[in-house]
């Protein structure tokens, strides 16, 4: 068992290494030149941008594993941003995180009461949450933030973040008051083939790491553990797969669904609070920007598994980070997409699916041609890169995706 687990870890590390290698090769090949595919800044920014999406994704997994579609994640994140900022303003950043979580959980509670308690359609209730939450935030801003300096009906005064740290030795963090050497940073600056690139990515992940980021990342294994190793988690999953069966074995299906949806809201609330407190340092209206929905996409992308959602959020975070930093880097991604499509075409050919092979090969050719004849992608493209990437992945992966069998269905005890 221990051996198996360490080999899983090894596999993941190898996969991550593979990604870095591919990207650094791409960086070398790309014309015009780009320096941002693998850099300290991109890695750091990727992680930071991935966290809220990851938290929304985990929230989606909790709810959907219990059989409740939570399209209200977006609204719950909005509640998280407002309450997070307010809490941080009044009591300090950690309290802000906690109060943001509570705000999101309140949104989850509303959704749970409607869907589980009253049997309202999950989408209807979720949309309602998404409509009510921003309105509530605006109303509360008017009541609370308006009078203060820097505050108004659409934004709060600035708030402090929870603080960050550098890992000792690896990224030059302090240990017992002694400033350790920044080994990764130094290696990254050496311009060694590959080694510097790997060091740059690791340095980006391990330096100025927010404590809140660390907490959010830890929720991935925690969710896996609770959902797959505890009776509570098994009962939640059974409620989303076959509630009638679970009920017939004495599982309190309503309670499971209720709890899972509230946890879902709490996670989304954390995501919102993270945006307000860690990313922007302010509550601003509309700052969630659809990350709740993107989180839902990572749920599907990740096949309803926390680790999968984490990978999905990294993909979004990466695309998001790139489009902000460097448009030529997005252009370089075209090369990657073209090569990947060519690979898929080859696979389809080997599997004798000629129709898909032709389609994939011609898409590949089109993308590569686009890459060859342009130096820069159109300004509209970078912001939608994350969405395009997910769309492509979903199109090619759907046959192997399995959502919980009773997801989105209304469950009424005693009715079959």
């Amino acid at each position, binding site marked *: 068992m221990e051996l198996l687990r360490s080999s899983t870890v090894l596999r993941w590390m190898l996969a991550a290494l593979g990604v870095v290698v591919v990207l650094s090769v791409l960086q070398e090949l790309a014309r015009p030149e780009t320096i941002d595919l693998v850099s300290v800044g991109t890695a750091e920014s990727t992680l930071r941008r991935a966290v809220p999406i990851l938290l929304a994704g985990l929230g989606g997994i909790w709810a959907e594993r219990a059989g409740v579609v939570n399209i209200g994640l977006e609204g719950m994140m909005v509640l998280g941003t407002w309450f997070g900022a307010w809490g941080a303003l009044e009591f300090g950043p950690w309290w802000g995180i906690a109060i943001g979580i509570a705000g999101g959980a309140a949104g989850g509670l509303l959704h749970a009461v409607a869907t589980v308690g009253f049997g309202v359609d999950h989408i209807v209730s979720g949309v309602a949450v998404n409509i009510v939450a921003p309105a509530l935030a605006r109303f509360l801003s008017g009541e609370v933030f308006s009078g203060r300096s820097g505050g108004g009906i659409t934004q709060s005064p600035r708030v402090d973040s929870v603080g960050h740290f550098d890992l000792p030795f690896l990224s030059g963090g302090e240990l017992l008051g002694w400033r350790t050497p920044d080994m990764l940073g130094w290696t990254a600056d050496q311009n060694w083939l590959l080694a510097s690139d790997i060091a740059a990515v690791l340095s980006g992940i391990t330096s100025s790491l927010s404590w809140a980021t660390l907490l959010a990342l830890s929720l991935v294994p925690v969710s896996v553990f609770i959902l797959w190793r505890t009776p509570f988690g098994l009962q939640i999953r059974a409620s989303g797969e*076959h509630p009638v069966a679970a009920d017939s*074995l004495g599982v309190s299906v309503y309670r499971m669904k209720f709890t899972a949806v509230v946890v879902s809201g709490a996670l989304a609330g954390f995501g919102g609070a993270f945006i307000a407190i860690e990313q922007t340092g302010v509550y601003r209206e509309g700052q969630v920007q659809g990350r709740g929905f993107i989180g839902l996409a990572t749920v599907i992308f990740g096949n309803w598994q926390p680790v999968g959602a984490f990978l999905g959020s990294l993909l979004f975070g990466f695309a998001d980070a790139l489009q902000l930093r460097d448009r030529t880097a997005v252009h370089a991604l075209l090369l990657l997409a073209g090569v990947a499509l060519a690979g898929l075409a080859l696979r389809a050919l080997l599997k004798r699916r000629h129709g898909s092979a032709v389609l994939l090969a011609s898409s590949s050719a089109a993308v590569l041609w686009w890459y060859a004849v342009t130096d820069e992608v159109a300004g509209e493209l970078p912001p939608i890169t994350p969405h395009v990437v997910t769309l492509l992945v979903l199109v090619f992966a759907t046959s192997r995706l399995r959502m919980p069998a009773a997801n989105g269905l209304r469950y009424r005890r005693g009715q079959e």
Partner: protein
Amino acid sequence: MTTGSATPAAVELAGITKRFPGVVANDRVDLRVAEGEIHAVVGENGAGKSTLMKILYGMQTADEGRMLVSGNEVQFSSPSEAIDAGIGMVHQHFMLADQLTVLENVVLGAEPTRRGVIDYDSARRHLDELGISYGLDLHPNDFVESLEVGERQRVEIIKVLYRGAKVLILDEPTSVLVPQEVEKLFGNLRELKARGHTIIFIDHKLEEVLAIADTITVLRQGRTVATMASDQVTAAELAELMVGSELPKPSTEPRVADQHVTLSLRSATVTGDDGRPALEAVDLEIHRGEILGVAGVEGNGQGELIEAILGLRHFAGGELFLDGESITHWPVRHRREAGLGYVPEDRQRRGLLLDAPLWENVVLGHQTQPPYARGQWLDRSSARAAAGTILSDFDVRAPGVETSARALSGGNQQKLIIGREMAARPRMLIAAHPTRGIDVGAQAAVWDELREARREGMAVLLVSADLEELIGLADRLVVMLRGRITAELDPTNTSPRLLGSHMTGASVDDQGGVG
């Protein structure tokens, strides 16, 4: 507490009554199951077997009556209480989550833990022990979705044993199994019995019941008819007890059929949902002005027959003709436009949009034809008018055509559907269980309409579980068993008893001996 026996019965039900709106599912039912026996409860569909078992398993509560388990009076308000009392149930439709493993399904709700974490190792050991001692071989880490039906059933049985059940209820366990799997199941059941478990076995296949059961209780229309030892009864006697002959007879009329064949099936083969053939080489002819009755225990291919004729299911082989024209590959809409009418078995799910107004429901299925449509557009006003005519002609009691279908009683919903189909003057009318679950008055009205259809020269295919209805209305009867037509009978000299024995496959040779 128990009278007349030294050891208390494993389960004793006395005077159990359960009413649903408009129906009495169980009417003072008595059932006494001795410890360590295999006790079969038989009866037709709707005889109240499943309701009785749901009451015993705590899924429903009885309105009246007493339950005793091992001599102690009990009252269950949920399955977990029944489980605590040592009663387990293997449901007809498996209660298994496909995407969970065998082990997860088994331990669900009764997880062994160590420091808050599910102790899968000890659960796996326990499951292996059970598997070995009862001959129920299973791989704990398999996902349920990858299992065959027989294996799923074994998971269900293990699930029940894992919770320490002494009394096992199996609800029509053989209905989903192929013969070899049935043999295996019976082996498992005998093993369980040998180890002191008590088994209550719900079924309506008489050979199986006689092969496995020690004692048999027959239910009919919610009442206990008889309880006897299985070696003192024949299949034919059981069939007679199950079917009875107490229903009011729908009256017959002289035959008006002529030689013209309206619908014919030639060696039709249809694949069922499980991939096995649900219809095999069925030949059928229905004449103008004739009611052809199809008898059979539910699930022997009647549903697939209807779906194939309507075009809801593809033919794997054979051909279908309407008035001599092959319509084998026509889409549903063309068939309906050509004159197929359909009264579905489940009127609320297949026959109506419950939340749509009556006039829209009347348009359904005829949306391309006048008076409901003019070109590509719905003609709303004449559709409303036509709906109004149907309401009055067919005595549908409703406030008006804007009422939603949900607001109507079952009988009026059925009259609306029949009116809708009849108003389109089909050449061929298919009626599946047209009087199921409706009150006596509506039943008589439905019968009248079917006779009217016959008088007007429609060909009518009537599938029903109500044998009196079949014998009373049909001009000819065919019996379906395992996807084949196994008998054709003349209703004028057929009794429900004879029909019942054909339906259950009990040999006709038995008949002479019993008569």
